[in-house]
């Protein structure tokens, strides 16, 4: 099974995790295509490939995929589009269902991930999966958790708003959550500086290899029931 993962900086934790668990998953091969922040917006559909339109993106695609200069969609048997603007909003309890639905739809439709999914679907029937940007570890103060709509509700709403055939949202697994909204603090990363190699404080947003393992195992279970 040849799976692609297309994502942004948050894909790093998945790649780290896959490096350490891949030996146990002989039946699956993951190819990563990742680039920082929103630079995946510069991917252009060209025939049956997603092609980087900037040298910067081309370089990142090559580095992360092991040398590929474009994303050969037809070679994939499943594709996970990870983060890339797909995230859950913080919504107070009391906001109407219609407003929640509209917000989730807005976030999806405005995301680079959704645009890529729609473009991929225009040329391929490959099963598509969308993965959310990890919830921060400090979305909501614990004392006010009951004041906000929990992630699993938002996940259900967003799933209903996808509207692209054979495309499913695979949200972060419950095992990564400390409560209905915040990611467990221990999954928050201590990134190393590239230049100095020194440790940095957790940013509360980017997750570590352990998180990546939880997500990858969850994704493999979810995805391969379908693929």
């Amino acid at each position, binding site marked *: 099974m040849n799976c692609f993962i297309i994502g*942004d*900086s*948050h*894909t*790093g*934790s998945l*790649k*780290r995790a896959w*490096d350490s668990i891949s030996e146990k998953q002989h039946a699956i091969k993951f190819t*990563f295509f*990742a*680039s*920082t*922040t*929103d*630079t995946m*917006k*510069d991917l252009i559909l060209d025939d049956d490939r997603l092609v980087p339109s*900037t040298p*910067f993106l081309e370089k990142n695609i090559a*580095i*992360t995929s092991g040398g590929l200069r474009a994303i050969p969609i037809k070679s994939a048997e499943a594709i996970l589009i990870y983060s890339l603007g797909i*995230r859950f*909003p*913080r*919504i*107070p*309890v*009391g*906001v*109407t*269902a*219609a*407003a*929640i639905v*509209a*917000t989730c739809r*807005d*976030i999806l439709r*405005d995301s680079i991930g959704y645009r890529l999914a729609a473009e991929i679907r225009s040329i391929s029937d490959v099963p598509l999966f969308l993965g959310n940007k990890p919830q921060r570890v400090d979305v909501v103060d614990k004392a006010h958790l009951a004041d906000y709509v929990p992630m699993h509700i938002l996940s259900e709403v967003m799933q209903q708003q996808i509207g692209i055939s054979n495309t499913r949202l695979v949200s972060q697994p419950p095992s990564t959550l400390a409560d209905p909204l915040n990611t467990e603090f221990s999954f928050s*990363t201590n*990134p*190393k*500086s*590239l230049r100095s190699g020194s440790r*940095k404080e957790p*940013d*509360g*947003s*980017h997750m570590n290899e352990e998180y990546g393992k939880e997500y990858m195992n969850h994704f493999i279970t979810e995805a391969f029931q379908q693929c």
Partner: protein
Amino acid sequence: MSDDDGHPYLDIPETAFWSSAVAKRNFLEISDLWNPKFPIKSSMKISTFGSCFAQHIGRALREHGFRWFEAEEAPERMAADTKSLFNYGVFSARTGNIYTTSLLKQWLEWACEKNEVPTEVWHKDGRYYDPFRPTIEPDGFASKDELQASRQLTLKALRTAAESSSVFVFTLGLTESWKNRVHGYEYPVCPGTAAGEFSAEQHEFVNQDFVEIRKALLDSVRLLQSVNPKVRIILTVSPVPLTATMSGNHVLLATMESKSILRAVAGNVARSSERIDYFPSYEIINSPVMRGAFFEPNQRSVSSAGVRHVMNEFFRCLFKAYPELSAKQATAEHRGKNASATVARKKGKALASSDPTSGDIVCDEELLDAFSPERDSR
């Protein structure tokens, strides 16, 4: 000057004379129409409520770098046009239009728990409508519970706005109102128009007079001051004519009478306190010398040029009275621009993102580290 040397008019400013202040000027150059009683700093929280013209004030304050207070924020990442559809960001809380001073009092009493919110709910085609803000949701509410939960959020936000605003702007819009005969509470629109059903037995038209309007406004001011003793208030009168009148008069007459009463109340109440001011948006749009130039062809809607002219006068007068605010405002805007530029520089040449989160700066390293050749060989 002895009593024989002249008369008091010799010592009054040029703006006090029609000839020099109006007749000899192009109407677009008529200025100094407002002498603000107090400064409004860019750091101050400013709330805006009232008739529909009030929303222009909130928007202009935001655009000029002032701290317009959105006490009831839209869901995170809701798109701008969706916000507009759901009436977020229109007023400081989702009260909808508060046309009358008695409606303001009613909302404040509910928010400050001085009075209970009525249980009345309107129902049509399987959807529920809030009688006190019938168009706040584009398709009404799914249930009574949803309606009440949503209104609670609004009341909480209104309370927050009342308690923590440095400046509370209220635009008076109408004298004509609709009330529940039995319970005495007021609706913002006639039942049966935007939603609900009209019943002559239950609903009555009340064209409020000077005394009633002034009392409701003073009661509102007292309520505001009881939860926020330092609050300053700016009153304005909407220049927008009535859509329709139930007064029995021609709508033009009804409009003139209504606006005259509101203007008189606003002036009277503003004169009663150094903490209450009146800003003349009504006169800037509606004075005969403006020749109706700021209205759309329907002679009712204020054009965007009109709104801009009003708000330009607001800021011009404010900065003239308090020049230090102008300098600080310019510095604040400059600082804002510089901060954005610094973030962009830090992100480096390779980063094309417009998202200025520091997390994404760290994440570049995180991502590249995950794919670094050193890691693969580890």
